[in-house]
């Protein structure tokens, strides 16, 4: 054996040995090679005669081919396991994202969404001026604010730029000290998404808003429609309904931070001074809840602000009864009661999991939740979800009734499968006492007549009304259903026949021929809301694509705080441990752990990935309220002094790496976390994503440093004085 033949012999023997005991990783392959080398070395020393046999080239090739068959067959079979085991699955996505960040000047996030103001960060070391320009005949440059240390903040309102009506990629130029650098960004312009329908007093009309397209839709019981252009970021619309303006519509705008009164003969805009997230109107009282750095409940009467109540939680939903205002929150997962004038009224009513939606009548509020535990943390089974509707008696401030919704029909594929009542999204309390519920996860609408225990079910799956968000009773026994995913509103007769469907967005056929990216987004969005046969959907833990801000017992190993699914583009791998190379990989989880989705959908993995990564992170509150630039500069200085950019590198505030949990938080914490590796998360959106750390053990940012850094490896915080730490936290909260 000489030269390449001895090498070939070692390789072939190694392959044969490996195929007998195949381990799909580099260690297995290398061990086989070492063993083969040892065997052949020993054989050559002990049996030299065996190696005196001379083979012709043809014989060598033939023998090699025969011996190579089993290992090659095994390798083909185990290829994907090898890629997963060696972190090579989806490696190209990770590589692209990391190189995007390492190529300065770098901008993050690499996604421009046409539907909202966005804050970008640019890393341009040594630069003194940076601006962004979208090339075109009337190109407009947006100047960035220097925060020092080569970091620039770029605040963009897409309405001020000349953005294309339809495109998947957008060429931009970063002008760094006058020198242009071309970059290609992902671009998203969403289709109309009419969500919650609000009825007029006589139930002759309903109104819904589409935050994505800044429009409101007015639909009457005969499905005649009117489209109304609104201000920036309409989040809710109600009929004013009072005696003076029965037909006026009130629209709450998140980014304009105001209420617009439209129609009814007296249009008016009322500055709220805070970004509204939801509103409710009853009689002459309007209750608006605002998020922001100082969340508020704003109570209005006759178009005048009567009271502003500062909240110590971030509100999500608001409902009005005859005597009270009820506000829901995720942290704590509870309801909060106020008198109609805004005075607090009693302690919060703990629910265990945050309300998904809420509606009120004279004396009660009806709330949809994914679990209920009145006296402690939510149930902690693996991915425990139990969709249910609660009736809360507001006067006595207790849950008077709870009914489970996730149910099965004879269509179940296997015992225990669920296919109805998954993910209730919209509740309407009709004047006749009936309760209407829309289930986005299972494409059905239920009507509970007053006193009935069993609902009447209407399916929307056969119409382009899948993923129903809202169902509202209309006069004459009719009802209307909205589908944000399909951009449709349907009016049904009392017996459940679709009378007329109104499309505010193109249908699937049109998208297939003209905008396949939008179609893929739609399929992905449907997949996001669609329930699995176990009754769990993505929406269950990520309401409105965000986070339910609680902890879940993932994999039955450890409690993990739910992540926000918005703003993920450009940050692979995903999950707290970086275990998923693509968002679409969750499709496998649905198939293996949750009995699969209700419907077969080809290419679901890719569409789910396309949809979720298209979601921009929420606009930072300070983009509207203003920032203290000088303080943010000091914050950046503190950030660098504490060596945070080692892992949370500019401009994404992550270097997309993973670290052993024990390295950062010590072996004891790591053992408790049950996760070997931790993904370095981006810090963008941090101010809106409490609680912090993998298991949500830190309620505040200060606590992350003060109480949860036992190994003193989560930044050199000791290098900061108290003022610098304050500045650092100010910076982080505004990212």
């Amino acid at each position, binding site marked *: 054996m000489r*030269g390449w033949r*001895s*090498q070939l012999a*070692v390789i072939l023997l190694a392959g044969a040995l490996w195929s007998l005991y195949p381990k799909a*990783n*580099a*260690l297995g392959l*290398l061990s086989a*090679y070492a063993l083969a*080398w040892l065997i*052949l*070395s020993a054989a*050559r*020393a002990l049996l030299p005669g065996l190696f005196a046999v001379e083979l012709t080239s043809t014989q060598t090739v033939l023998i090699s081919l025969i011996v190579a068959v089993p290992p090659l067959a095994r390798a083909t079979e185990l290829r994907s396991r090898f890629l997963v*085991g*060696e*972190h*090579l699955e989806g*490696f190209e996505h990770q*590589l692209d994202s*990391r*190189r995007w960040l*390492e*190529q300065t000047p770098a901008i993050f996030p690499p996604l421009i969404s046409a539907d909202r103001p966005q804050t970008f960060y640019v890393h341009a070391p040594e630069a003194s001026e940076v601006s962004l320009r979208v090339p075109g005949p009337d190109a407009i440059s947006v100047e960035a604010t220097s925060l020092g240390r080569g970091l620039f903040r770029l605040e963009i309102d897409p309405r001020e730029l000349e953005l294309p009506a339809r495109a998947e990629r957008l060429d931009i130029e970063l002008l760094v000290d006058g020198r242009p650098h071309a970059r290609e960004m992902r671009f998203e312009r969403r289709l109309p998404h009419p969500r919650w329908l609000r009825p007029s007093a006589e139930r002759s009309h309903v109104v819904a808003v589409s935050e994505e397209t800044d429009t409101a839709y007015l639909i009457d019981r005969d499905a005649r429609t009117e489209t109304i252009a609104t201000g920036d970021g309409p989040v809710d619309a109600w009929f004013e309904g009072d005696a003076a303006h029965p037909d006026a519509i009130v629209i709450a705008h998140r980014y304009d931070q105001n209420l617009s009164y439209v129609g009814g003969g007296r249009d008016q805009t009322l500055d709220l001074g805070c970004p509204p997230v939801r509103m409710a109107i009853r009689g002459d009282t309007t209750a608006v809840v605002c998020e922001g750095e100082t969340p508020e409940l704003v109570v209005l009467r006759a178009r005048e602000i009567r009271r502003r109540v500062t909240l110590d939680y971030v509100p999500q939903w608001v409902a009005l009864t005859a005597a009270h205002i009820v506000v829901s929150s995720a942290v704590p997962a509870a309801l909060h009661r106020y008198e109609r004038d805004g005075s607090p009224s009693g302690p919060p009513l703990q629910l265990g999991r945050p309300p998904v939606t809420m509606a009120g009548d004279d004396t009660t509020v009806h709330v949809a939740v994914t679990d209920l535990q009145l006296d402690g943390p939510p149930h902690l089974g693996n991915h425990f979800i139990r969709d249910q509707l609660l009736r809360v008696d507001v006067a006595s401030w207790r849950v008077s009734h709870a009914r489970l919704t996730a149910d099965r029909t004879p269509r179940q594929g296997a015992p225990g499968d669920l296919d109805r009542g998954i993910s209730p999204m919209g509740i309407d309390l009709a004047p006749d006492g009936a309760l209407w519920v829309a289930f986005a996860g299972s494409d059905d609408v239920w009507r509970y007549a007053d006193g009935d225990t069993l609902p009447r079910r209407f399916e929307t799956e056969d119409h382009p009304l899948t993923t129903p968000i809202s169902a509202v009773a209309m006069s004459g026994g009719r009802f209307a259903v909205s589908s944000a995913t399909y951009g449709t509103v349907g009016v049904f007769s009392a017996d459940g026949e679709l009378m007329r469907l109104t499309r505010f967005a193109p249908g699937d056929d049109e998208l297939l021929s003209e905008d396949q990216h939008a179609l893929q987004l739609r399929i992905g969005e449907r997949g996001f809301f669609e329930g699995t046969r176990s009754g769990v959907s993505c929406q269950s833990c990520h309401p409105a694509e965000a986070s339910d801000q609680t902890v879940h017992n993932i994999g039955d190993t450890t409690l993990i705080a739910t992540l926000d699914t918005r703003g993920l583009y450009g940050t692979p791998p995903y999950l707290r441990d970086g275990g998923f190379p693509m968002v679409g990989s969750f499709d496998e989880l649905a198939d293996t752990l949750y009995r699969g989705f209700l419907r077969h959908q080809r290419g679901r993995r890719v569409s789910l990935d396309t949809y979720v990564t298209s979601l921009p992170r929420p606009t930072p509150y300070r983009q509207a309220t203003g920032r203290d630039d000088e303080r943010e500069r000091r914050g950046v200085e503190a950030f660098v002094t504490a*060596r945070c950019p*080692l*892992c949370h590198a500019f401009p994404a505030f992550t*270097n997309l*790496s*993973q*670290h*052993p949990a*024990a*390295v950062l938080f010590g*072996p004891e914490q*790591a053992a408790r976390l049950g996760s*070997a*590796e931790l993904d*370095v998360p981006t810090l963008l959106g941090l101010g809106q994503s409490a609680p912090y750390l993998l298991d949500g053990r830190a309620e505040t940012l200060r606590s992350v440093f003060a109480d949860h850094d036992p190994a*003193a*490896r989560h930044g*050199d915080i000791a*290098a900061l004085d108290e003022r610098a730490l304050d500045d650092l936290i100010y910076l982080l909260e505004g990212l």
Partner: protein
Amino acid sequence: MKTRPPRRAPWVAYGLGVVALGGVAALGLSAPWDFERQLLWIRGTAWSAFIGLALTLCVSPVGRVLAKRKWFKRASVDRLRRAFGITTAALATAHAALGLTTYLGDSWHLLLELAWVRSGLLAWSVLLALWLTSYPALVKRLRIKLWKPLHRLAFVAFALAAHHALISPFAPRDWVFGTVAVVAAVALLRAVR
């Protein structure tokens, strides 16, 4: 061109190794934060070893071309390659020792658990085996006959080291790809006869 004395070549490699180690030590000492200092030492020795391994793999193809043009003696090429290999293995050992005693601390169970740590461990194991079998006296004593199939594992070690770097937390990807590209390009010189 004047041929260099054969025995001087290895000291170039050893000297570069010592300079690299000294530079990395000094760089680390300039960092005020313990953790950053440890990371600088780990990353510095890692890059020194990775570049050393790249040079080791480049010596033969380049040296062969130079030897063909009588610019270099073949024996010098072999000695230089061996010296770079030994230096690389020593730097990789320093990197592994620093990683195990500082970054990983007591968490040695992660050695096989995390893909990027595991491939680094495998690369170092290969280099260690090659280091030990780089001394003719020891090779003779161990009666190693299949020396080449063993030492061709240097390419495997390089692939593992590249994998280790690419999925590790800190290595700039373009640097890793640049180094791999240079080695791949130089390897093409083997085709030059």
